[in-house]
Every structure is written in structure tokens, then in C-alpha cells.
């Protein structure tokens, strides 16, 4: 039975359990639903829940565990063979899996019988040709060991899936029967369903948390690997960024400072544009604009947030860059040599961030109670005095949060930088020079033929980790600010 069928059957058991559990509970109350502890739906749901949840849990665990188990068994059975030079046990295993998959396809297409696949040997069949015939191409001819491994693999997987199907069905039926037997008038089905919902919500939350932790660990391990190949001090304090892909090892300078500087510089200019413009437009929209202007202008500003960043990148490259060059370039002031520069990327990124700042600040300013404004106007304050002295202080924690959110966006932004800021890693104060950021360099280190064992590629993880720590720090700082003002004003 294939997996999708198995799932369907379990669902069918659950559906049947729902109907039967509901009916049984009703019957135990003599058909009067008021005599039940819970509404009839809860009894049905309870049975369905007992059919589905344990069965699917076992299914999930089995699906995760089976490949690991089978792999280790096959590996153990192959332990006596010697691995050729330039190869590894991992490569042998992937050969085994390819051959096993190929045999599956061959059996499915009828190119050989199930028995033949089990008893096949390399002496009397050319496996490579056979599998080539059914559309599975192999890189080299199949060694007897690999074939033996593949056959063990198929055998174990086959047994595994039969056992799994049986087990899952038994658990589903057993769960349903257990809950069905308990469906009588006094059973507190409603409370059990409530618990089930709690479990569902908790598991959703833990998926989010666990994924974050997983990502963090993946970054962490690769970062540690990188620091084994490249000294951490050189990475953190190196002022030169010059990776070399050809001369592997030693020849690269992988100092993060120029990238960090570029990141901060560009983000700084972006925030310099986005914060005043965004904040002022939020104040205008929420405090001064008539409802009509507001209903038109707010969506227009929010459209800015929907534009893909690659479009902003093009805008930087093709429009803003040339304009800046014509203003500050060789012909006039001579500050700028090319269109790609910190200023170009910063300005465009600032435009991109305006809707973040303005839309969040607008919501926050609107959330300040009208009574606060009334109090201020009632004392004879003007509108701008009210905004400066009452509304902004009250909204400050939220606004700071909005700005820090925009800052994390700026630090993490990639496309605009790739297209607008140039590729040169440089430590310079001149905003009209090309510079580059951490994100842009992660992209360039991993595109193309990256060898994931070299420091030049692994540095991407260290850069990613740096970004992660930076944004984490920003968020913690934001929380701190928000909490500080909460304490004061709530």
C-alpha cells in the first residue's frame, strides 16, 4: 500500500469513527443530547482524534527513522569491502540507493520480475545497461558489492513499509475503538477535545521554534568548521576581503570588517532617508490628512512595500546611479566614478523602507487613545505641540520598534546592494564609492562552482552567523527599549 493510500485509509477510519462515536454517545443518552456531558460533535471528534493522532505520529516517526535504520544495516553488511581512492562510504551508499531505486523502476515497468530483482547477479546481467533501458542512468558499471547492498536495501525497505502499514492501521483502529468504547453520556469528550486542540497549537508553535533552532545549529556547525580552516581573529579583525577561488587555501583574505562597514554604511543612509520621510508621512496621514486623502494615500504608500526588491535594484542601477553620477560625477564635482555606490544603494533602500516605517508608525500613532489628544487640545495645545509632546512620546516604543525592524530589513537586504552598491569590498568614508555588504558577499561566495569544504565557501556561513547575531542584537535592543518605556508609562 502506498503512503497516500495509507493516509486516506486512516482518514476514512477517522471519519467512520466520528459518525459511530457520535451515534453511540447519543444512544447511550437515549437520543437526548441534553443528557450528554458534551455536545454530540465532541464525541465524534474525540474518536476521530484518537484514530488520527497516534497513527500519524507513529507514521511520521517511522518515516523519519526507517531510512536511518536501513542505511546503517546496509552499511554494516558492506563493511568488509574496501573503498576505492577518491571515493568514500557516503558515495558508495548513494550508489546503492540509486541502484535500488533503479531496480524499483525496472520492476514497476515490468522489465523484470520481483524475484529476478532479488536474485540478480553482476555475472549474468549488465545492470547498467538494464537500468539504462528503463531510463535510470548510472555513472559507472555496478560492482557486485553495490548490487548486493542494493538488494539488501530493497529487502529491508520492503519489509519496513509492510510492517509500517500494518502498525499504523492497527493503531488507527485501536485508537478509534478505544475512544469509541468510552463514548457514553458521562464521558467528558469536550475536555479531551480541548486538550487535543492545545496539543495541536503547542506542536505548531514548537515547529516554528525548532526550525529556528535547527537553522541556528546548521549555521553554527558550518561556522565552527570555517573557523577550523581560517583563523577567527583574521576573520573578525581583517580589514581586507579578497577571496581567491583558483589558488585553493591560504591565498584568501577573508576579513569581515569591510563588509560590515559596507552593511552599516548603506543601512545608515537608508535609515537616514526612510525614518524621517516615513515618520513624517505617518504623522501627516494619521493626524492631519482628511479621511479622503488618507484613504487614497495610505494604499499608495503601501504599494511601495509590495514591489519586489529586484525591481528596486534595477531602479538603482538604471535610474538613480546615472542621476547621481551626473550630479556628483567626473564632469561636475568629481566625487563619484561610477553609478554603483553606497549612496545609490542607500537611497533606493531608503525608499524601499519608507512604507515599513510609515505604515507601522501610522498604526501605532492611531493606537494612541483619542482621550490623550483631547487632554492636550483641552489645555490649549496646538496640533504640532500635541504630536510632539504627547502623541510621539506615547507612541515612542512602537516607533522605535518600527525603526529597528526597518534596520534589520536594511541589514538583510541583498538585491538592491548587488545591483546598486557594486562588488568591491572597501573601507572608506566616501559615500560615493562602491562598497559591498555581507549579504551580497554571501551570494557571490556561493554562486558558481562552490566547493563546500573550502574556507572560501564556508565563510558564507560565518557571514550568515554574523548577520544573524547582528539582527538578533537589534531585536533584543528593540525589546529592551520597548520594555523600558512600558515600565514607565503603563
Amino acid at each position, binding site marked *: 500500500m502506498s503512503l497516500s493510500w495509507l493516509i486516506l485509509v486512516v482518514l476514512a477510519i477517522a471519519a467512520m469513527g466520528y459518525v459511530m462515536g457520535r451515534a453511540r454517545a447519543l444512544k447511550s443518552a437515549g437520543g437526548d443530547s441534553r443528557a450528554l456531558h458534551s455536545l454530540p460533535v465532541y464525541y465524534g471528534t474525540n474518536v476521530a482524534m484518537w484514530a488520527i493522532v497516534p497513527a500519524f505520529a507513529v507514521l511520521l516517526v517511522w518515516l523519519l527513522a526507517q531510512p536511518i535504520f536501513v542505511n546503517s544495516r546496509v552499511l554494516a553488511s558492506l563493511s568488509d569491502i574496501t573503498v576505492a581512492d577518491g571515493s568514500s562510504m557516503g558515495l558508495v551508499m548513494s550508489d546503492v540507493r540509486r541502484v535500488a531505486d533503479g531496480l524499483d523502476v525496472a520492476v514497476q515497468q515490468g522489465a523484470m520480475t520481483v524475484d529476478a530483482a532479488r536474485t540478480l547477479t553482476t555475472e549474468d546481467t549488465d545492470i547498467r545497461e538494464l537500468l539504462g533501458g528503463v531510463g535510470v542512468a548510472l555513472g559507472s558499471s555496478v560492482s557486485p558489492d553495490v548490487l548486493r547492498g542494493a538488494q539488501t536495501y530493497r529487502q529491508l525497505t520492503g519489509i519496513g513499509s509492510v510492517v509500517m502499514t500494518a502498525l499504523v492501521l492497527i493503531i488507527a483502529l485501536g485508537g478509534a475503538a478505544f475512544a469509541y468504547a468510552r463514548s457514553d453520556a458521562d464521558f467528558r469528550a469536550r475536555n479531551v477535545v480541548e486538550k487535543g486542540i492545545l496539543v495541536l497549537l503547542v506542536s505548531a508553535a514548537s515547529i516554528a521554534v525548532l526550525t529556528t533552532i535547527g537553522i541556528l545549529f546548521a549555521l553554527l556547525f558550518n561556522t565552527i568548521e570555517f573557523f577550523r580552516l581560517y583563523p577567527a581573529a583574521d576573520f573578525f579583525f581583517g580589514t581586507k576581503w579578497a577571496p581567491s577561488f583558483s589558488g585553493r587555501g591560504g591565498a584568501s583574505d577573508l576579513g569581515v570588517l569591510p563588509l560590515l562597514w559596507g552593511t552599516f554604511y548603506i543601512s545608515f543612509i537608508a535609515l537616514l532617508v526612510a525614518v524621517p520621510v516615513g515618520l513624517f508621512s505617518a504623522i501627516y496621514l494619521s493626524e492631519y490628512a482628511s*479621511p479622503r486623502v488618507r484613504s487614497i494615500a495610505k494604499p499608495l504608500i503601501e504599494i511601495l512595500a509590495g514591489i519586489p526588491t529586484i525591481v528596486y535594484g534595477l531602479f538603482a542601477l538604471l535610474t538613480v546611479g546615472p542621476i547621481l553620477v551626473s550630479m556628483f560625477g567626473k564632469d561636475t564635482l568629481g566625487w563619484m566614478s561610477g553609478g554603483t555606490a553606497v549612496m545609490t544603494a542607500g537611497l533606493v533602500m531608503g525608499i524601499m523602507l519608507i512604507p515599513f516605517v510609515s505604515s507601522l508608525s501610522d498604526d501605532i500613532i492611531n493606537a494612541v*487613545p*483619542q*482621550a*490623550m*489628544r*483631547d*487632554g*492636550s*487640545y*483641552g*489645555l*490649549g*495645545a*496646538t496640533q504640532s*505641540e500635541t504630536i510632539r*509632546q*504627547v502623541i510621539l*512620546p*506615547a507612541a515612542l516604543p512602537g516607533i522605535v520598534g518600527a525603526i529597528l525592524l526597518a534596520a534589520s530589513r536594511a541589514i538583510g537586504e541583498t538585491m538592491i546592494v548587488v545591483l546598486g552598491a557594486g562588488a568591491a569590498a572597501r573601507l572608506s568614508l566616501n559615500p560615493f564609492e562602491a562598497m559591498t555588504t555581507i549579504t551580497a558577499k554571501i551570494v557571490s561566495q556561493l554562486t558558481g562552482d562552490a566547493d563546500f569544504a573550502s574556507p572560501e565557501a564556508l565563510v558564507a556561513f560565518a557571514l550568515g552567523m554574523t548577520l544573524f547575531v547582528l539582527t538578533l542584537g537589534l531585536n533584543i535592543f528593540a525589546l529592551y527599549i520597548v520594555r523600558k518605556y512600558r515600565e*514607565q*508609562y*503603563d
Partner: protein
Amino acid sequence: MNDMRIVERDVETNDVKIAAKDVQVHYGDTHAIKDVSVDIEDKTVTAFIGPSGCGKSTFLRCINRMNDTIDVCRVTGDIRIDDQDIYDPKVDPVQLRAKVGMVFQKPNPFPKSIYDNVAYGPRIHGLAKNKSDLDDIVERSLRRGAIWEEVKDRLHAPGTGLSGGQQQRLCIARAVATEPEVLLMDEPCSALDPIATAQVEELIDELRENYSVVIVTHSMQQAARVSQKTAFFHLGNLVEYGETGQIFTNPTDPRTESYITGRIG
């Protein structure tokens, strides 16, 4: 209302401070104030009474143009303070509100320290010459608001951290700090205990020497205690307006009589 003490009242008439004529207020389609005309005297406490939702707050807010801040609200008619039409385009509502202070129905301290709450108005209007002057204003206002003793040791704690009744007195202190000529108080004692209420009533009496005070209240006893004039509103109409003693002892309108004896409301 048998226990009401109707105090000796000075019946000499004062100048008219606020003259309202044919005032109508609409909230969108709701007609909240219908044809109200009333003359509020200087150096007098005027009480607005009436059942909930009859438009007391609405009318009060017309007097310092606070209704301007509500989009759907339309005010027509003629309201004059010191014979100056306050809805005249020449009149600056900001200036007007500095002159006509207000204590709101719900306490609304700013998210600032107690000190800054009270100092807000004086700072905006430049009433204090220097820091010690401002300190004096703050202390005097808090004393008048009957809250000084409770907050004098924590002037720099947030005003929002006070209890509801303390917040209300803070708002009273904040309103008197700007020395308004007219003080509009919308149920200033609704959250106060009897002691604080007595103190606020004392303050109202004291303010009367120089200012005109309008107070909305649901307490008949309070109206009788503090006011010289009483206006009874019902469903947006001004039903009866006159000497407090006369309204409470000898109302002319049957609706007034049923309300103050507790039969409608």
C-alpha cells in the same frame, strides 16, 4: 432628596460669561443637542444635570470647541464668551481652549510624570518665568486638585501609574494649572471617594471667586451643594434652567421634577 442641604445662596446676578443661543449639534444623523439657549454667568458654578446620553458632555464640549476634533460632529447656532462669537473664523480654537479649561469625563493623564502632566499647560503657554516658578505652579495646582499630599514624594513617577480617582484629581490639577477663565468639568467626582469629593467641591467653590465653572454631575446632592445655577437636559433639550434652589425645591417642568425625585433617568 430629603437630606439635601440647600445652602444660603447669594442671589445677586453676575455678568453673563457664556451666552449660547439656538445651539444644535449633530453627530452624523444623530441630533444630539436641540435648540439649546442658555446664559452662563461669571463667578458662578453652573451644574448640568440630566439622564445619561442626554447631551450634557456634548454641550460642554461645544463651549471650548472640543467638538472640532470629531469629524462627524456639526455645531450650529451662536455661542459667545465675553460677547465674542467663539465659532467666528477669526477665533483661534487653541487660544480659546487655553481660556476655557476642561476636565474630561474619563481621566486622561498623559504618559508623562505627574510633574510634567501638571506643567504641560504652563509650559506651552509660557506661564512660568523660571524653574522655581514652575515648581510653585505645579505645587499650587496639585494642592488645589487635592492630591498634593499623596504625590508630593513621587512627582516624577508616571501619572498613568496613579489610581483612577488620583488620575481624575491629577487632571483637575492639570486643568487649573493654566489658570483658565472658565472651567468645564465633566463629572469630575465620578471616581472619587467622599473625602476627595469634598476637597474638589471646596476647590470649585474657591474657583468661583474668580472664574465661571460649569460642572456636569449625576449626583443631585453635589449639584445642590456646589452650584448656584442648574440646567436640566433631557434627550438633547434644555428643559429647565434657573437658580439651583428653585430647580430643586420648586421645578416648573414635570420632567425636571420626576428626574430629581428619581422617577426618570
